[in-house]
């Protein structure tokens, strides 16, 4: 039985430049700030930055690995507060933690996620609503 305050298993997601190139291709977002260091620095960024949507896709795994059924995710929203800088070849490591904020009467869960790189928050208001009952 899931209780308010229950922690989901935290995960660390390493991110390299190659991940961003693959995500660009899969998502169709070819903005050069996500793969071209020369371009990224020319527009005032410290280096190439990850797609916010890549960070979002990675972070939800803390929930979907826990439930096993990604189709149970009813709502998922985030605010992008700080870019995830991905230098080559070092890359970055995204740390994601989750906890249950509310258990509704019908069993639906509200989950808060925190996502950080080097201890600095990169997603705020990261909230997930998960259906707890089996798939109809």
């Amino acid at each position, binding site marked *: 039985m899931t209780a308010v305050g229950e922690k989901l298993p935290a995960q660390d*997601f390493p991110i390299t430049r190659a*991940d961003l190139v*693959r*995500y660009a*291709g*899969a*998502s*169709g*977002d070819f903005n050069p700030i996500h793969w071209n260091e020369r371009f990224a620095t020319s*527009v005032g960024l410290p280096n190439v930055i990850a797609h*916010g*949507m*890549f960070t*979002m*896709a*990675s972070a*939800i*795994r803390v929930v*979907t*690995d826990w439930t*096993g*059924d*990604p*189709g149970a*995710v*009813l*709502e*998922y*929203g*985030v*605010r*992008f507060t700080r870019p995830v800088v991905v230098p080559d070849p070092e890359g970055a490591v995204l740390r994601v933690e989750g906890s249950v904020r509310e258990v509704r009467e019908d069993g639906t869960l509200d989950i808060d996620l925190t996502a950080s790189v080097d201890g600095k928050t990169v997603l705020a*208001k990261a909230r997930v609503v998960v259906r707890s009952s*089996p*798939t*109809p």
Partner: protein
Amino acid sequence: MSVSPSLIGRTYPPSAPYEVGREKIREFADAANDPNPVYWDPNAARTLGYPDVIAPPTFAIVLTLQAGRQVINDPELDIDYSRVVHGEQRFVHARPIHAGDTLQVVVSIDELRTAAGNDLITTRSDVRTVDGEDVLTAFSTIVVRGPER
């Protein structure tokens, strides 16, 4: 960009139908380094009651990003794309997308505001099957950074 509140509610023509295929779902899951079998194996998906492999919760960005270009390129909004950053994103699902769906996106302008010298534009993308079944709604806020001060 000039924020004109009169543009709130503006709705753009539906996108061309998008056929969701198993391999595209697998490609997206692979790009997210996500091995969940429900994205890869139709039998695993059927065990959970789905008709075919389902798409990850953020997959709809593939469709909504494309459809959202109508807003970015709207001459009346006059957006400088080189100053655009992604501010917020939210998906509200009626059900997961699965292979075999044919989907269309209708994008509208949900909110326009100015904060700290930046323009914030929130779009709403309603994703439905071509038969009119609601699948999800995506809300996306982009920030158009104002001139450096």
